[in-house]
């Protein structure tokens, strides 16, 4: 292999983590999980005992045939009761197995459901930073691959581990009961077997890991090429791309073959080692018999009340042979389950990491409440929906003040960095009075979007103050703060559901009429009514059935229906062509009327009519003023406007 450095070490089983999974499992079903465990244990013990009774039946049959006694009625008296005991054991085992299987089906799914919802709930509470710093594909795989491994773990590996473990112990006890030397022989054989299976299984695990990487490489290549398929066609680049794919495909073939070859060979190897061990036992037993060696057993120790030498007999060897297979089979199961569980723990670790992730903290105590005004103009809090809002501000001395919601936003000397040592905003001050339109202009990376991230507290500032209606935003409960801010982003994200559902996302109790009005305001009504099912058209696959511009219009309608006093439009019309934008403009103007609006736009025609335009450069405001003033100043804005600078 060329890439030996990618060989990962075989991971060790993390007992503590496994303990945590089990604790979660028991926590989810404090009665059912122990009950199933008891069922599994008892049924395993019960199902390893019949071998003894069978042996006894054989022994009876044997004595009869050897003594030449063909009298069935005599034998019947001895055999039938034993078979009856056997049957009753079967019944017990059957009932228990049926019970625990049903229970486990129920528990597994319930447990997964609980894990899933907890993960999702936890995820919803995480700060935006988490999503900015983690690949979305990785987060998704926690919900798909890792949850799947958990399912396997709970529904199969754990019960199997318990079953095999109990059987191994029971059989070991029985074997010791019969003969210690024979047991020693078997154990030696089993150790050899486990050794081989570890070797082969380890090889398989190693290549499965490599296969995973090869699969990821193939997926990456395929994804890139499928997305770029049209470019490939335009450049007639099919052959080169095919050659590239064949190379990656060949590597995948190599590792996939090896991984499966090892895995496939494991079964026959283990089974036949079991067969050979059987022969070894038979031969050793034969030797013991012929040599007339004395047997040492726990039975002998107990019944003969002391160490009494008893010679080996056929009655010992024959049941032993039968137990060999059972024993080896289950030891092997045990070692395989330990392997799968070790692998599953990697998935469990990722899931717990997500759940342990620190939630977005919210120590805000100023809340947004419905209000009305009494005859003196004082604010009174009400439970009903009045359409007027006020900030409810409890103070340390137990008093309450109400501040009407107006939409006055000020930033004062704000510094910020996504990482503590890399400051991206320097001493930013912005004063936006209610109803004003404030625009941010600047190159990519100048910090325009960052400012809006701070106003709604997706990120927290390092220094300075941001005030909303004169209240420090740190004191405002985050959900209420965000409720008072409407955002429309450049990358429009829609949810599956109808167009109507998507608009209603802005205000869940809006009527259909309100939603349609919002759409009209945003200029979206026109194309929506032309869709096959109008407002009931299903949005699929993040709106793949709509154009980017149409998605933006829906997003604007969504923000409009929320009717917030402050709106942030971050490149909200970038994908709408200038002609359509001109048509939408009137609606947009109406939408912005009476609101404080922050606009970030690439296209200067969008920001020209703002009350104040801030030109940002490398995290600092370098120019501010109205369009007229900035043009007159002949500074950076003027150069941008005349196309002498490139906006990126």
């Amino acid at each position, binding site marked *: 292999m060329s890439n030996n450095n990618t060989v990962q070490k075989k991971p060790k089983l993390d007992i503590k983590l496994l303990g945590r999974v089990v604790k979660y499992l028991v926590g989810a079903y404090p009665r059912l999980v122990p009950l199933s465990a008891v069922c599994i244990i008892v049924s395993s013990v019960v199902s390893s005992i*019949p071998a003894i009774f*069978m042996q006894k039946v054989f022994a009876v049959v044997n004595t009869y*045939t050897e003594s030449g006694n063909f009298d069935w009625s005599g*034998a*019947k008296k001895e055999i039938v009761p034993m078979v009856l005991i056997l049957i009753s054991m079967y019944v017990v085992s059957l009932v228990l197995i049926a019970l625990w*299987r049903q229970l486990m089906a*129920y528990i597994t*799914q319930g447990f997964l*459901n609980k894990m899933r*919802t907890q993960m*999702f709930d936890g995820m*919803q509470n995480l700060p935006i930073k988490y*999503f900015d710093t983690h690949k*979305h594909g990785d987060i*998704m795989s926690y919900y798909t691959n890792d949850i799947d491994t958990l399912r396997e773990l709970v529904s199969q590996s754990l019960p199997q581990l318990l079953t095999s473990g109990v059987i191994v112990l029971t059989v070991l006890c029985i074997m010791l009961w019969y003969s210690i030397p024979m047991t020693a022989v078997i154990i030696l054989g089993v150790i050899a077997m486990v050794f081989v299976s570890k070797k082969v299984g380890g090889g398989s695990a190693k290549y499965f890991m490599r296969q995973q990487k090869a699969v990821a490489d193939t997926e990456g290549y*395929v994804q*890139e090429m*499928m997305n*770029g*398929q*049209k470019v490939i066609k*335009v450049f*007639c*680049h099919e052959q*080169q791309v*095919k050659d590239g*794919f064949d190379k990656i*495909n060949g590597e*995948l*073939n190599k590792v996939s*073959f090896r991984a499966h*070859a090892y*895995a496939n060979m494991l*079964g026959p*190897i283990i089974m036949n080692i079991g*067969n*050979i061990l059987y022969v070894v036992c038979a*031969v050793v037993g*034969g030797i013991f*018999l012929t040599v007339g060696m004395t047997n040492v057993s726990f039975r002998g120790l107990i019944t003969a009340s002391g160490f009494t030498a008893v010679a080996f007999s*056929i009655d010992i*060897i024959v049941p032993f042979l039968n137990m060999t297979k059972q024993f080896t089979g289950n030891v092997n199961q045990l070692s395989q389950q330990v392997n799968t569980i070790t692998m599953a723990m990697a998935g469990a670790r990722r899931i717990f990491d997500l759940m342990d992730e620190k939630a977005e903290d919210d120590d805000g105590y100023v809340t947004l409440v419905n209000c009305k005004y009494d005859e003196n103009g004082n604010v009174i809090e009400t439970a009903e929906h009045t359409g007027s809002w006020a900030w409810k501000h409890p103070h340390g001395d137990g008093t309450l003040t109400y501040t009407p919601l107006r939409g006055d936003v000020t930033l004062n000397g704000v510094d910020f960095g996504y990482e503590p040592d890399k400051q991206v905003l320097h001493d930013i001050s912005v004063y936006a009075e209610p109803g004003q339109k404030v625009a941010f202009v600047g190159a990519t990376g100048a910090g325009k979007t960052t400012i809006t991230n701070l106003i709604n507290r*997706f990120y927290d500032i390092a220094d300075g103050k941001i005030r909303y209606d004169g209240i420090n935003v740190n004191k405002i409960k985050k959900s209420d703060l*965000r*409720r008072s801010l409407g*955002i429309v982003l450049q990358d429009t*994200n829609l*949810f*599956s559901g109808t167009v109507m559902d998507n608009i209603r*996302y802005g205000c869940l109790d809006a009527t259909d009429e309100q939603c349609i009005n919002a759409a009209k305001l945003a200029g979206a009504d026109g194309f929506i009514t032309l869709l096959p099912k109008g407002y009931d058209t299903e949005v699929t696959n*993040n709106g793949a059935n709509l154009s980017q511009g149409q998605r933006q219009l829906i997003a604007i309608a969504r923000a409009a229906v929320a009717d917030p006093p402050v709106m942030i439009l971050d490149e909200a019309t970038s994908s709408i062509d200038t*002609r*359509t934008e001109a048509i939408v403009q009137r609606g947009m103007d109406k939408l912005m009327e009476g609101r404080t609006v922050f606009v970030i736009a690439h296209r200067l*025609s969008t920001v020209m009519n703002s009350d104040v335009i801030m030109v940002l450069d490398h995290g600092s405001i370098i120019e501010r003023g109205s369009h007229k003033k900035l043009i007159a100043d002949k500074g950076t804005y003027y150069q941008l*406007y005349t*196309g*002498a*600078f*490139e906006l*990126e």
Partner: protein
Amino acid sequence: MIKRLAKCVREYKLPTILTLIFIVLEAVIESIIPFITSQLVNNIKAGAVLGDIIRTGLLLAGMAIISLCCGGAAGFTSAKASAGFSTNLRHDLFEKIQTYSFSNIDKFSSSSLVTRLTTDVTNVQMSYMMLIRIAVRAPLMLVFSVIMAYVMGGALATTFVIVIPVLAFGLILIARKAMPAFTRVFRKYDKLNESIEENVRAMRVVKGFSREEYEKAKFKTASDDICADFTKAERIVALNAPLMQICIYFNMAVVLIIGSRIVITSGGSTIDIGELSSMLTYGFQILMQLMMLSMIYVILTMSAESAKRISEVLSEVPTIQNPENAVTEVSDGSIEFENVYFAYTIGVRRQTLENVNIRIGSGMTVGILGGTGSGKSSFARLIPRLYDVTSGTVKVGGVDVRDYDITALRSAVSMVLQKNLIFSGTISENLRWGDENATDDEIRAACELAQADGFISSFPDGYETKIEQGGTNVSGGQKQRICIARALLKKPKILILDDSTSAVDTKTDALIRAGFDKYIPDTTRIIVAQRVSSVQNADMIIVMDNGRIESVGKHDELLKSSPIYREIYEQQTRGGDSDEQ
């Protein structure tokens, strides 16, 4: 469908056949082993003559070793065959997709093609391995075991034969009941995952609207629903184990009672005690094989869906193919549209392009303007035959584009697509897509023309700068200019820019156009744009509206004659005179 996939086995027929041979051998030996085992038990019983024990033991050990070799070899060859088969499948799929036209790609969507090439192929690979190993082994073992049981136990073996149909019926019933339940659950599961993905992607929207609790509630409902369905399905499957146990236990009890009776009354002459214990092993083996068969049934039905999706891709007919006796030389860069109608899908009420007639002379610069959905991009896409017209003809160099060899046509007609895509690899590797044998000087010249040399040279690694997947480490405007340079390297007779300078500032945009006039004056240039400034100096401007040509002319003429052109112009120049500079 199976025939279509079977074609991909190709050079892996030998390992497949070898697997089958090894599996048959293994199955035969494995069904004899319990018989030998019973001999060994008898040997011990018969007074344990060491010689006998060792002889039978060696026989058994020998068989075990042969079985091990056969089983191991089968594992090896089956892995070879199935990995190879899937490699061929992937190769064929990928190759087939390369022959797809734009409309074929649109039909499948790239994300679904990715799934088909990855997950679906893996599913089929696993089923293929199952099929050649277990699906052959299980019925064989079943038959052999029944035969051996009859050979050893005579009439006693009939108990197994009675149990087999009962168990088979039960297992099939369970599989039948469980399968639709599982298909339903998996579909819902996919939906749930989609909604998780939506949330992860749209987290800013969720948080921006403070919809966390709403999303949690929505998720819980969906997750609970899946949980209930899944539990139902799993509980049906959980019936397998007890059913199996009942059959095994029934067999054991019957064999013990009746068997002992036969042994005793016949004095061990019909069956002896060793054979009796082997009968139990055979009984167990028979039932295990049935279990295997039902498992295979489930897995095969589940992967049938994947197989179907793969064969859909393989049997798709590319809508654009090379004609026979194709013309391989494009004489000049003239373009002609004659009564062209075009629609992306058949049967729509309004076509994307309707009755388009235009003549563009070689070496002209043509601007195309119009609102979203006016058909300006569609117009451009017909020239390199990315799509075929519904009716009418498109001619390049005086020849119908459908008569050209596609590679020849597309080498002569270079198009920069709206979606600027560059691939992972270095910048120069990306540029060489245009011309593999381009010298460094040629590359630099193309980049200078596209105004890309400046920023590329400013990178520490210059032209050897690595582009990350998706081109995330260069800006939109830089990407556009790399794309233009890449298209220029083809030295085309016709160059089409489909809104390719939207992220480039007006000054650079103008520089690029000026460069075209100076260095490639003989190349016909088609510029689809949103900015009037990008096209106003063109020899000819085509204004599109609702799939039709609204008007054609020069800037000054159109200002007078075309209301749409005038509107766009005024809207863009309102409040400033920047474009005149």
